């Protein structure tokens, strides 16, 4: 996982979530920019897709937290093959726009193209893993 936030926040996040994979800290956001992950616009953040995703989270009994930090920074996913070639590159348009982990794993195992982005945000503990 890659974050642009400070190292002490990353350490707290790892402790809170119990992540077992590395959380890389890139405060300059250079790597974000290199993969085209720039600032999202107002409607990307607060558009209907976000509200629908949050509504689904609530329906599934998940508790939402108030966001802090730079909510405009886009996230995304980059899958790199064993030879160092990018095989999947997705820049999230907003909070609700991320590919499901299962479809990324299927790509690794079967070469199946990852599914289109659903209107869900992955929960903590599901984001990022070395495969």
């Amino acid at each position, binding site marked *: *996982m*890659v*974050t*642009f*936030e400070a*190292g002490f*926040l*990353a*350490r*707290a*996040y*790892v402790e809170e979530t119990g992540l077992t994979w*590395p*959380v*890389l*800290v*890139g405060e300059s956001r*250079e*790597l*974000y920019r*290199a*993969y*085209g*992950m720039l600032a999202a616009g107002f409607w990307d953040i607060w558009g209907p897709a976000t509200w629908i995703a949050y509504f689904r989270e609530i329906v599934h009994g998940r508790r939402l*937290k108030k*966001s*802090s*930090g*730079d*909510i405009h*920074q*886009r*996230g*995304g*996913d*980059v*899958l*790199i*093959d*064993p*030879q*160092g*070639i*990018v*095989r*999947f*590159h997705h*820049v*999230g348009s907003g*909070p609700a726009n991320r590919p499901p982990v299962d479809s*990324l794993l299927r790509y*690794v195992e079967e070469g199946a193209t990852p599914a289109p982005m659903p209107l869900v945000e992955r929960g903590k503990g599901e*984001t*990022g*893993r*070395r*495969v």
Partner: protein
Amino acid sequence: MNLKNKLAVDFELPDSDGKLHRPADYRGSWLLLVFHRHLG
């Protein structure tokens, strides 16, 4: 911008414990980089 089928961007970044990571460290394995929006 889509970098599919391009060489991965090189970098050197510390993790939350200060250990440095480079893409070359993971050569030979699939690597998924999940860029988080914000942690809080």
